[in-house]
């Protein structure tokens, strides 16, 4: 549909950008748009979402939408064509699929915001930032080069910062915003270095050009450096260990923001970046993909363990997001390219739903604390049901969407030859148990049991909030089935990248690859999910308040474990301690050195000049005779010193003439 109007695709990022600009233009002119800003955003995002769906339809039906590109900056080059920074969009299978998911979710969450954010004082800010964010995210997905991707990446970081700090009068929100920006910035610097190395290696930022050139580069360690630098960016943005600390705190933002940015889209940008750079990773030294797999696998289990203990509903979901992102990296790391993207898509749907449902609950009881909820299922049937579907899906119950992608990931791990795939497989399996457990703990605590007194007067949220939640329940349940049987996702993705499946298994087979093993693995995954569900049922569903996780708090070694989890493995304290105990004293010392040392030297020179003057002025006695004496002394000195040689000759001559001796 779009092949003749290709330039219209620029509207995908620019329609929301224009809304952003317009809202702030109005604000600068003193006109606060309020709720109207929301409707404007919805229009802007709607245009983008529509276009992204059209593009997906075109691309999946085999229409080639050529990349469109403009030159941004051009540098002369000795002898060759000028080297250029370009801005461009490309529509391959990967960007079409992810773009469609992002577009749809953005639209639904903007719609949801109309209800959730109603009455907020900073509505125009909120919608401006959301629009900017959505434009940037779509721009990132469709960009055809690393530079544009990085630009959009950073704009998303800015929006994330501003939206986490939306309630900026709250010190926690301000601190969380700062933390999010700075921690992701660490990754961004890595990405930036990666850009520099890419430019100096390839002379271009274009994905297609790099993909063509990458095979010709023999220095696999150089490629591994590039890949790992890019992965550093991904670790920051997708909050993988050890840069995971910002995401749970980011839950201080409004709930639609958590749903959109910190669950469904922005945090996936890291996964998307690795997927985009897959040719680089595959051609690089295996250390690159091994690192990705291990960081992902470790984060999956590490974050899931922390999700076990918290009561803040959004915080539990945030740790769950970390863990699921870990799964995606694990998949990419072991060569499961399509599995990773598949999980990205499924997770976007069910996690957005979970956040929006959680938002509805928070809206109903005015608290994030799950202990203040309970028994909400009777009051909020639609929300509760939708969340149950999503919970089943994320836990990996058979045939629901999470099951498809999670099992594909586990199978890929099992089949891969990555360093100690057996341990990674164990991580993955155990994470599946933990996931089912903490998700059902969340669901039971929120919707089951007896309502707390806060929850007694809860009512179902307004339609603008419920409709998106219920709508999302459809893809949350069925996206896996549809993707596998309608779209044939693995082929769809791998065809687009022009990479045959075996490429991913260059790492070497695990040794046991066989169909029966694969089946056994899948069955094992489902069993693990059911196990987790059962434990949660026993602890929280059947009779809440007896033997549960919190009960461990007072039990010797288990109490130590509990407190470690509750304190998030003390990693946050480590970061804070590093800043307050190392950096701050250091810079204070440095400031004193600057004032006392360097500036002290400068002022010391000035003081020395003053001191010299003060001592020399003593010569000015004010007595005429002294001056006269000094004048004469000076004359004599000049005469003697300046004419020493002449004088000596003269005296010599005089002596010879008068006394008849000498020379």
């Amino acid at each position, binding site marked *: 549909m779009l092949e003749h109007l290709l330039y219209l695709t620029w509207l995908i990022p620019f329609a929301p950008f224009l809304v952003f600009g317009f809202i702030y233009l109005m604000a600068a002119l003193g006109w606060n748009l309020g709720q109207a800003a929301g409707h404007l955003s919805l229009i802007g995002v709607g245009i983008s979402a529509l276009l992204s769906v059209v593009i997906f339809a075109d691309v999946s039906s085999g229409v080639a939408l050529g990349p469109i590109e403009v030159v941004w900056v051009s540098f002369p080059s000795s002898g060759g064509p000028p080297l250029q920074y370009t801005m461009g969009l490309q529509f391959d299978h990967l960007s079409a699929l992810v773009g469609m998911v992002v577009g749809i979710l953005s639209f639904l969450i903007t719609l949801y915001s109309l209800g959730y954010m109603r009455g907020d004082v900073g509505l125009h800010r909120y919608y401006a930032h959301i629009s900017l964010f959505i434009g940037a995210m779509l721009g990132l997905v469709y960009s055809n080069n690393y530079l544009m991707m990085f630009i959009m990446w950073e704009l998303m970081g800015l929006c994330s910062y501003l939206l986490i700090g939306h309630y900026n009068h709250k010190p926690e929100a301000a601190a969380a915003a700062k933390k999010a920006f700075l921690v992701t910035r660490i990754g961004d610097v890595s990405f930036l270095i990666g850009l520099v190395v890419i430019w100096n290696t390839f002379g271009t930022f274009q994905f297609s050009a790099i993909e063509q050139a990458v095979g010709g580069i023999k220095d696999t360690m150089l490629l591994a450096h590039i890949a790992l630098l890019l992965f550093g960016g991904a670790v920051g943005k997708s909050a993988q260990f050890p840069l995971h600390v910002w995401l749970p705190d980011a839950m201080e933002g409004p709930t639609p923001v958590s749903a959109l940015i910190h669950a469904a889209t922005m945090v996936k940008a890291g996964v998307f970046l690795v997927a985009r750079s897959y040719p680089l990773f595959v051609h690089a030294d295996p250390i690159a993909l091994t690192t990705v797999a291990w960081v992902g696998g470790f984060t999956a289990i590490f974050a899931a363990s922390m999700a076990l203990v918290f009561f803040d509903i959004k915080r539990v979901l945030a740790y769950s997001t970390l863990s699921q992102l870990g799964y995606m990296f694990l998949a990419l790391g072991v060569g499961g390219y399509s599995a990773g993207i598949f999980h990205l898509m499924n997770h976007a749907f069910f996690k957005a739903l979970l956040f929006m449902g959680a938002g509805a609950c928070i809206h109903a009881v005015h608290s994030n604390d799950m202990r203040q909820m309970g028994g909400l299922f009777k009051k909020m049937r639609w929300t509760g049901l939708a969340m149950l579907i999503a919970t089943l899906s994320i836990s990996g119950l058979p045939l629901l969407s999470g099951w498809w992608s999670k099992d594909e990931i586990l199978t890929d791990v099992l089949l891969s030859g990555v360093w100690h795939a057996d341990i990674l497989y164990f991580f993955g399996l155990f994470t599946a148990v933990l996931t089912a457990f903490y998700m059902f703990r969340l669901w039971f605590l929120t919707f089951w049991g007896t309502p707390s007194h806060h929850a007694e007067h809860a009512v179902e949220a307004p339609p603008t909030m419920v409709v998106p939640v219920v709508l999302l329940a459809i893809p949350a349940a069925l996206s896996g089935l549809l993707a596998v049987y309608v779209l044939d996702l693995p082929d769809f993705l791998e065809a687009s990248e022009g990479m045959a499946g075996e490429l991913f298994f260059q790492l070497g087979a695990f040794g046991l690859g066989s169909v029966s093993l694969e089946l056994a693995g899948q069955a094992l995954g489902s069993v693990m999910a059911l196990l987790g569900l059962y434990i949660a049922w026993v602890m929280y569903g059947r009779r809440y308040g007896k033997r549960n996780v919190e009960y461990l708090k007072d039990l010797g070694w288990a109490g130590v474990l509990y407190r470690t989890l509750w304190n998030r493995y003390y990693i946050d304290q480590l970061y804070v301690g590093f800043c307050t105990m190392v950096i701050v004293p250091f810079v204070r010392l440095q400031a004193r050195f600057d004032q006392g040392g360097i500036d002290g030297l400068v002022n010391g020179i000035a003081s020395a000049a003053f001191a010299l003057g003060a001592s020399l*002025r003593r*010569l*000015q006695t*004010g007595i005429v*005779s002294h001056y006269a004496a000094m004048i004469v002394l000076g004359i004599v000195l000049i005469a003697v010193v300046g004419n020493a040689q002449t004088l000596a000759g003269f005296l010599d001559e005089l002596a010879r003439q008068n006394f008849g001796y000498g020379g």
Partner: protein
Amino acid sequence: MAVPQAAVLGLGAILFSLGFYGVLTRTNAIAILMSVEVMLTAANINFVAFGQYSGDPAGQSYALISIALAAAEVAVGLAILITVFKSRGTIDVSRINVLRW
């Protein structure tokens, strides 16, 4: 009868030293001025002496110019001393030291 050059120059040197001694030791401004005049006279003697012995009349002319200038200098100097005396009540240079550090 020719006076030896050395003798004339010696006279000049003695006069100059006397004048210089006076400048350095006297605190009365008028005495200092007189001493300066003595030094100038010594310089004039040297002019004349060198002019005489080298057969150049320029030495004498410069001496004359110098005498005229000395007269002017004394006039200005005395005028300054009168104003100083009027404003400060003394011409003792050891007590006129406002330009001191």
